């Protein structure tokens, strides 16, 4: 962890702790006000609780040009990104992607190339639908490790996070409390329900919360579609392709549409936002990630639309290539933030309980 980033966040947190005007906005301030001195782990925890809603920035009497020069959303965003990079495993990959959209693009092109190569070299054994291009077994051979690797990596990273913030044994009630906040994205509601300050200075708007919800639920629906397909394939011996009125198609379609819309809207909002009230160094990486996720969804919808045409092979390679890169990069891109956020909310549920 970069000690200068933590030190700056600590300086600001101590000023906030003497003020306390922002207590109502989000989970960060009640957590901050519980302590008088902030260990490095406390700062890491506060940073991962912060959802960058920016309400506190615009309400703050001490932002520049005031000599106290507070910009808590930025200070915490920088610590947050640094924490993800520091906890990620394996380390050589960890610091490449958050700050470099170009690296994400490169990895995606690499994913495309692998899939083209796979489709060309592994002759399909006469399957139907997509399996005509790449056999089911070949897909599994490629994607099972690509799915397991990020999970293992995230477990490593989250374990380091948990130790750094001094987390204790997790009970079901901690998880349900955290899940309830995630489900509603309570910390993007601004405390009063009117949302955050993001795309238009101090105007409160639910837009950023809604884009996050679209992306999160879109992703979960798409994921559920894959899960449903797996169950149908292995349990009920019903291999793809599936008709429109089937669980994988319905989940996948609605998820894909939500994801495409969410990513497009998110990019538009982010474009209008003030970079200086966040981690400006992650700007490129964030856009790279939004583009990759949006492309995964868009190419998936493309397969649905053009799956019966000669273009299918090409689109399938692009889609599977993007999915491959997306999976592999999960622990090293903005995608990781969802997992760390959840961990921070679980930890917050624990500390709230301990203080009661």
């Amino acid at each position, binding site marked *: 962890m970069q000690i200068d980033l933590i030190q700056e966040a600590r300086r600001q947190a*101590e000023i906030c702790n003497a003020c306390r005007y922002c207590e109502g906005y989000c989970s960060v301030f009640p957590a901050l006000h519980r302590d008088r001195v902030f260990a490095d782990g406390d700062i890491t925890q506060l940073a991962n609780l912060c959802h960058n809603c920016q309400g506190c920035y615009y*309400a703050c*009497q001490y932002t520049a040009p005031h000599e106290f020069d507070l910009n808590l959303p930025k200070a915490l965003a920088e610590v947050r990104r640094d924490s993800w990079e520091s906890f990620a495993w394996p380390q050589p990959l960890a610091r490449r992607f958050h700050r470099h959209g170009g690296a994400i693009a490169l990895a995606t092109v690499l994913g495309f190339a692998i899939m083209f190569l796979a489709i060309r070299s592994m002759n399909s054994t006469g399957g139907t639908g997509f399996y005509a291009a790449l056999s089911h077994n070949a897909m599994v051979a490629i994607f099972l490790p690509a799915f397991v690797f990020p999970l293992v990596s995230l477990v490593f990273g989250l374990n380091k996070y948990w130790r750094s913030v001094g987390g204790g044994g997790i009970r079901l009630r901690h998880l349900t409390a955290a899940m309830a906040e995630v489900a509603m994205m309570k910390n993007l509601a601004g405390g*009063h329900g009117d949302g955050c300050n993001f795309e238009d200075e101090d105007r409160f708007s639910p837009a950023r919360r809604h884009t996050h919800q679209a992306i999160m639920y879109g992703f979960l629906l798409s994921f559920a579609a894959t899960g449903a397909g797996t169950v149908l394939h292995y349990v009920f011996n019903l291999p793809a392709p599936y008709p429109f009125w089937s669980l994988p198609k319905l989940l996948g379609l609605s998820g894909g549409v939500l994801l495409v819309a969410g990513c497009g809207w998110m990019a538009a909002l982010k474009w209008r936002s003030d970079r200086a009230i966040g981690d400006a160094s992650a700007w490129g990486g964030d856009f790279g990630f939004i583009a990759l996720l949006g492309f995964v969804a868009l190419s998936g919808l493309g397969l649905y639309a053009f799956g019966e045409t000669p273009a299918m092979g090409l689109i399938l390679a692009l889609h599977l290539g993007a999915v491959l890169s997306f999976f592999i990069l999960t622990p090293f891109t903005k995608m990781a933030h969802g997992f760390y956020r959840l961990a921070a909310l679980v930890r917050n549920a624990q500390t709230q309980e301990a203080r009661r």
Partner: protein
Amino acid sequence: MTNTHDIAIIGGGNAALCAAMTAAEAGAKVLILEAAPKPFRGGNSRHTRNFRCMHKAPLAPLVGVYDEDTYFADLLKVTGGKTNEDLARMVIAQSEACLPWMQAHGVHFQPPLSGTLSLAQTNAFFMGGGKSLVNAYYRRAKSLGVDVLYQAAVTHLELEGDKITRVDFHHDGSDRSITPKAVIVASGGFQADIDWLTRAWGPAAQNFLIRGTPYNKGVVLADLLDQGALSIGEADQCHAVAIDGRAPKFDGGIVTRLDCVPFSIVVNKNAERFYDEGEDVWPKRYAIWGRLVAAQPDQVGYAIIDAKSLDLFMPSVFPPLKADTLEELAAQMGLPQSTLRTTVDRFNAACGDISGFHATELDGVATTGLMPPKTNWARPITEPPFYGYTLRTGVTFTYLGLKVDQNAQCCTADGVIQNLWAAGETMAASILGQGYLAGFGMTIGTVFGRIAGRKAAEYAN
């Protein structure tokens, strides 16, 4: 564009914005002349936190009941009778309708949280504090067609007979004049003009810190008083509290307050105590310590606690000085070491049974045979490490202002000025002659801002 406005409002804080929105809603074309640049807009309102509000029934976020008589009694307690009862009761009675109006104009309230629960019945807290209120009002004012000029410093209002005929101001490197039909003054007190403070207070004022905006220099106030506008309040009266001596000269705001005094001994630069630190719970004593410190040599005090008291009060914005011995602490603070040792030893010897110590109530744990005594929370200072805070006088606002009637209208000895109204700190002494009641400044500003806006719009239309 600036000559097409019906009403010019001088100042850009809560009272000015309430007046602007009210006048714009009544159809007037309004221009706000704010002396500060945009990041510092809002005067002292940006440092405020809550609104004291009468309510006959629970009025979210306020609980219970806070009736007019209780409210007025609370006010009398702090002003020592220096209160215009008619105006005060009018403000109190109208405060109840203000709260929903504020919400309708974009203000978000929150329930009182850490450290402010005792005010749950009387004070409604702005989520994010006064700057968020100011932001919401600017946004609403803009949508109502109000124009705002930042860094527009008004230098003169031309009073001819019983009318203001011209407003002179400096903006964007040039001197400009406009001739609005009506003018509302809402530009606060004069506390940021240290020379004026020094003339009124004496040389001690040079060492005062100003807790709020550096833009409240009282230029328009002085200009109007020079032309015969009637004043109210005394120039040598200001609301002053003891704050962290390391605070910035201006604009330190809320974070510079220090709540350690009841658990400390406070000495002057000669390492001698000068007042009962345990006289009452801190919120009630907070305001008198500004004057106590101002009366000490170099206008500075030093609060000293030991390890057992550190966690009993709100954290300070700057960490305290810390030392393992009193001598070391004295050296860090520039105090005579042997005198401090004697003062502390004498204090410690005067402490008695401390088993009844209770941090949040008057516990009667007092010294015996000590002058001045410490009448509550008197525990010996023995447990290292020792901590020290510097105290200085922090001025919140001045009282001298424009005398107004119930219509917020200003006057000269010859009667009312037909087209001049005042709202906010600049006329607050009409109601509050001395002392201060938490959240009452915002109440005066909101009530009188709305009155001034309505009356000015009626006149202009």
